[in-house]
């Protein structure tokens, strides 16, 4: 189906179901229960899951396939956001031109940075991208926000003001980002017994876009182009002596992943019309590296999982304060309750960074292939005796079956 083999089609269908049913899946606990703290099915977080999923999927095209570790990808995300907000300011709140502009501008920007950075490889490439991104951040945060030439609005972030021109704004359309009149913020809440589920227009727009770009990335992984990129990671020298020029391949991969990042940035702005410079900081670039590796670099679904995992942590664990802890352990005797709270306290709420750091270390040490590898190991445990595992990663190394008509 859709030019994919059976396995990829299954994967795509699974991802489709997961994203479409996310409002149910992410809200498994009744709204009033103590466990509701762990519900993640509210619009903002669901949007972030898919948007950062897009970001990580794009990053994976560069890092997972070619092995080039960019430490500056957040710059493209930030540029995309700025481009989108400028479209809102100058033309209209309709998200279509904004998202298109985000992709195009980020693409151009990545051509520029990629062309220079890809003259080097290995850690030098990483440092070059890092340097470019940090420069972009410094410029956006202060230099380009001076009153004479205010391109980014600096610390406060670029946003839409009432006196902005918006020359193509249609009368009667919402004064917020919208898709031909459908506000990105319209949400329908469905209460089923004790449960409550939110269906948000913005989320579904992001989800549909993610499905499209995820599908494209599957196609890319399975294409000759994707094969060449994996060959670059495996043995660049052999590739050159096989008559292929690795530079345009890496540049193309860099630009594609830059456009994915720009798309993510554009969507972020479309969901929430504000673009801040912190989005471009090197720690933000580090975050997408972490997402990709945590999920499983070079696998199809890994980056999406990694993105979801980290965003879940950032938004859910950071909100668990002592009050919440006490309410969880209220059933215990007083001394025990305080003891449990003291034990858990350093790892949640304001200590969520600590838990995240520990998790990274554990995953990198014990699961070099990321969460996907973890999943495979568990799966293998269950069918150890039934099937022979060839010992390689089926995500990464598809078995071509050219004689089977699809």
């Amino acid at each position, binding site marked *: 189906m859709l030019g994919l083999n059976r396995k990829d089609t299954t994967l795509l269908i699974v991802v489709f179901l997961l994203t479409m049913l996310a409002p149910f899946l992410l809200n498994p606990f009744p709204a009033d229960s103590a466990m509701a703290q762990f519900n993640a099915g509210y619009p903002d977080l669901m949007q972030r899951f898919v948007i950062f999923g897009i970001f990580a999927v794009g990053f994976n095209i560069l890092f997972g396939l070619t092995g080039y570790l960019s430490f500056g990808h957040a710059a493209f995300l930030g540029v995309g956001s700025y481009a989108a907000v400028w479209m809102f300011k100058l033309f209209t709140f309709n998200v279509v031109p904004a998202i298109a502009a985000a992709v195009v501008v980020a693409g151009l920007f990545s051509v520029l940075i990629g062309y*220079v950075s890809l003259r*080097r*490889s*290995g850690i030098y490439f990483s440092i*070059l991208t890092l340097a470019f991104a940090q*420069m972009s951040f410094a410029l956006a945060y202060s230099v380009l926000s001076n009153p004479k030439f205010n391109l980014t609005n600096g610390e406060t972030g670029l946003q839409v003001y009432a006196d902005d021109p918006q020359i193509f704004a249609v009368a009667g359309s919402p004064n917020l980002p919208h898709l031909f009149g459908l506000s990105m913020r319209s949400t329908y809440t469905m209460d089923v017994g004790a449960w409550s589920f939110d269906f948000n227009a913005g989320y579904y727009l992001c989800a549909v876009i993610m499905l499209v770009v995820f599908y494209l990335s599957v196609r890319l992984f399975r294409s000759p182009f994707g094969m060449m990129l994996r060959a670059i990671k495996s043995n660049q020298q052999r590739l050159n002596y096989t008559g292929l020029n690795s530079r345009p391949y890496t540049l193309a991969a860099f630009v594609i992943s830059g456009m994915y990042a720009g798309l993510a940035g554009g969507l972020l702005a479309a969901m929430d019309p504000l673009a801040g410079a912190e989005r471009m900081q090197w720690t933000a670039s580090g975050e997408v590296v972490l997402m990709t590796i945590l999920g499983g670099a070079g696998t199809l679904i890994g980056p999406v999982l990694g993105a979801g995992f980290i965003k879940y942590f950032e938004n859910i664990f950071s909100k668990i304060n002592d009050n919440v802890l006490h309410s969880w352990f209220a059933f215990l005797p007083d001394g025990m309750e305080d003891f449990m709270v003291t034990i858990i306290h350093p790892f949640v709420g304001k200590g969520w960074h600590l838990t995240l750091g520990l998790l*990274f270390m554990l995953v990198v*040490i014990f699961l*070099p292939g990321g969460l996907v590898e973890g999943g495979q190991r568990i799966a293998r445990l269950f069918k150890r005796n039934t099937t022979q595992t060839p010992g390689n990663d089926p995500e990464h190394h598809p078995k071509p079956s050219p004689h089977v008509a699809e």
Partner: protein
Amino acid sequence: MDSFLLQILNGLDKGSAYALIALGLTLIFGTLGVVNFAHGALFMIGAFCAVTLNKLLTLSFETVDETKTDFLGNPLKVETPYVEAWFGPEFGGALIDWSVPLAILLAIPVMVGIGFVMERGLIKHFYKRPHADQILVTFGLAIVLQEIIKYYFGANPIQTPEPSALRGSIDIGTMIGFEANRIIYPIWRLVYFFFAMVIIAGVFGFLQFTTFGMVVRAGMADRETVGLLGINIDRRFTIMFGIAAAVAGLAGVMYGPLNPPNYHMGMDFLVLSFVVVVVGGMGSLPGAVLAGFMLGILESFASTTWATTTIPGINQIIIYLVAIIVLLTRPRGLMGRKGVMEE
């Protein structure tokens, strides 16, 4: 002229910190081939050794002073450090006053210990893993270390003053024939510079003139051959990791009085020190030192009014600009050996 000299001094001073951190970083890279993102955290822990010693020395017992009241109107509790009670206010006070230099004695064993544990317990398993994995695991470690420090010491910077005898500034200008008040420089910054020079000289001397150092240098050049000679190079590399950690830690200990330590100071220096290492040449010790001082001086000059009016924002981007230019024109860095991670 005088402002020129002042900025040279500032540059050397900034450069001292860069050079010390980069030295350890490049040592670890050169010997073990590991990209250590937790190196900034080691610098931070060094600074907190000084904070800890200061806190230990000022551990106090409380006595109630009925004549005064605290903010709630209760009788004021006056705190007297135990050391002052035990050794008399004079010697005890001096101990507290000199806590930063004294912390060197605490920091060396602590840092070497942390270095050993880190290398044996974690880094060792990553020699054969890709650089990306090394970066990630050490980055995770850096986060964990800084969160632990934050948990115990808070997020606010903690003032760790230099000994009062070394406080204040001296007028260097008058010594070399300028008018008074033209070139004034803080004493502790000069101390820091000389301290850095001593450490750098010590590390170079150690590598140059001891058999241990010779083996390590040989190992940096060709690990396998040295291994074939039947020398246990791994154990020596572990010790080198300890030394690198100690160098970063000592840089941190003495840095406290310059700018009050906080839990994220390591991250602030991390990106910068990598730039220094790359500009100097991955794995090149003299390169790291040279690049450290060079970037310190460049940064100082970029922050002058003259520079910022000529090119607005140059002080924000100078370091990265230099890194990009060096990497594109001379990928092996200023003093890197040909072929080491080149292309």
